């Protein structure tokens, strides 16, 4: 089999995933697109492994690792998306613009908005109680 077939297929899949990451609004759809990109890489790894007849089967081993990491990533990613959704009521990526600069932020952003920025994005508010939870848990177990 020509090596070009799997290689080109992988490239096209990767670019489709790329498009999805850049164009989709819903965070879960973005995660799906990331999966597509990962799979394109996997296909590449397998094809080259087969082509090279690697005695260590490094390509296939790495593919397995990638799959495992992808599973972990999707779990964490979904947890984050859910946390964001609980806090913000949305899972649209382009609604999460707390790091954007607003007209009022022109001057004194160091003072006026510093604490606000820290507590502004959903991720931060999600993290902070988690930290307190962890510390409280630590106290409870101790």
């Amino acid at each position, binding site marked *: 089999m020509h090596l070009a077939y799997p290689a080109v297929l992988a490239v096209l899949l990767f670019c489709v995933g790329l498009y999805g990451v850049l164009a989709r609004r819903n965070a879960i759809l973005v995660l799906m697109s990331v999966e597509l990109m990962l799979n394109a890489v996997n296909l590449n790894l397998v094809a080259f492994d087969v082509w090279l007849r690697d005695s260590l089967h490094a390509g296939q081993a790495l593919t397995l690792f990638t799959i495992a990491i992808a599973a972990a990533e999707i779990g964490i990613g979904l947890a984050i998306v859910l946390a964001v959704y609980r806090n913000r009521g949305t899972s649209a990526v382009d609604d999460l*613009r707390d790091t954007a600069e607003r007209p009022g932020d022109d001057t004194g952003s160091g003072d006026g908005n510093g604490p606000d920025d820290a507590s502004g994005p959903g991720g931060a508010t999600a993290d902070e109680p988690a930290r307190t939870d962890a510390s409280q848990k630590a106290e409870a177990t101790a």
Partner: protein
Amino acid sequence: MTTTTLAVLVPLLPFLGAVAGLLLGRTAPGLARPLAVLPALTSLGLAAVVAARQGGDAAVDAATQLTPTGSVPIDLALHIDGFAALAAVLVGLVASCVQIYSTAYLHDDPRYPSYAALVSLFTSAMLLVVYSGDLMVLLVGWEIMGICSYFLVGHYWETPEARAASLKAFLVTKLGDVPFLIGLFALAADAGSFRITRILATVADGGLDHPTLIALLLLAGVAGKSAQFPLHTWLPDAMAGPTPVSALIHAATMVAAGVYFIARLLPVFAASAAALVVLAVMAAVTMAGSALAALAQDDIKRVLAYSTIGQLGYMTGALAVGDRGAAVFHLLAHGAFKALLFLAAGVIIHAAGTNSLAAMSRMKDLRARVPDAYWTMTVALLALAAVPPFSGFFSKEAVLGAAEHTATGHSGTAPGAAGWIVLVAGLVTALLTAAYATRLWLLAFNGRGTEAPDHGRQPVAMTAVLWVLAVPSLAFGVTVGALPDWFDGHKLAPTLTTSVLGTGFALVGALVTYGAWRQTTSLAARVPIGAVAAHRDGDAGLVEAEAIATRTPAYGDVAAAPDPADPGRLLLGPLHRHAAAGFRLDAVYAALFVRPVQAGARLVRFLDREVVETYVRGAGAAPRWLGVAVRRAQTGNVQTYLSALLAGTVVLAVAAVLVATAGA
């Protein structure tokens, strides 16, 4: 101790006193007075010893070189001849008197320690100028005096007049000092040394290449320091300082330095006939103009200031006719009686509470309040008016005699034209001097009207020095026979012609003024004038400061008062207005220098604010607008960021591939 050691100590002691006074003035105010008075007195004593040892014989010369200074060496040199020895005694005497007087005059002044230290420094600088045998060292003293006069004239810096006057004194003298410095360098370049002895030797050999240029450059500095036309305008304004400072500046130190400098280097000036004629014209204009101006002044101290300018004109006139003996003789005599006049005027101002002659002429029995000042001032005014047998008569006749000597062609050095100019101007000025001296005396001590205020006797420290100074004013003339031994050997005794002429003119002036005063004095009662200081029981310095501060609000002018009873107004007629304003020279300066400078400053300000600032603002605004534009990219949308990132990655990858394939 050798004479040299003594002579070194003379300027050194006041200097150390000044340093100690400045250091300890705050922590130990009790030491300020001894530290001020004792060095001055010791210096006086040492100067007298030096003078006695020198005795008018061959000059004492000593020099040491601290460090090599290039092609023209600078030495720490002493050159003490008869001029230097006597001038140092005068400086020491006047400085001691001023220091003693100041202890009482500025008794309650919180700034007395720094004041006394500056006076000591001033004295030290003048003594350095007097004794120095090296022009660079002389220049050091010269400039120290300039900065000290700035501080001392501005002693009452709370008043705008004092601030303006101190700045003016500094700037005008500096205006002369710049050409002076260039002249010194030119002189040293021609002579190959800054040592006075070597310069004089070079001049004697005819080694000067540009005598006229050098003389005129030096003359500018002398005109600034000695307040000669046209750089004299700082001196009347310098009256905004305390009276003892005026006495010090006017009698012995600052203004005398210029005359003394020419006297030292007279051969340099004499090498150029043109310079002598310029000097003569300068002296003539100075003395005649200042005498007219003095006749119109209302402030007693300004009268004396203009009189100083006039007497300095006599000295430069004597120098213009090549007789430095007469010049220094007049300098010594004038130093004594002018110091006396100023110090007495300080007492009078303290007693009357005003510095206005118009106000004094409406006070009865002022003379009874200050008998010491009355008598000593009378002596000094007689000396000023050159009435025999007071000291001023002899010294002024020496000047006029020298002028007549030159005018009739008996002098080898100076051109006859210079002699005529000085002689005529000197005679006219003798008349005017007598006139304004009489006017001052009549207005100050023969007032009619309300009783003069009485607040006790003046402090002994102030009155005693008046009598000390009255002695040389009265009797200095007797030395006329001995002085030529100390000087160049020219005969200084008065000749019959000039004596008769000079005294006659003086009598005429005095009589005319008296007649005018009789005419006008009846008007005094009708126009009440009088603004007196509020704190009559304060020390004299406070009273004077208040008198200066209240003068402009009360009279509308710093120089004149609207007093129809002033005989000067009758004598001068329509000229009075201009004379009171110093013949509008300040206005000319304002038009010539001040306004162009201000216009230039406005232009620079405009260029800075509108042109340069625009670039600065632009330099700030352009990045800001750029920042605003770039900031629009910060949407907060992760996808946008990622798009830009990946697009850049693609571009970079394509570029890398292209480069790689192109190379292959």
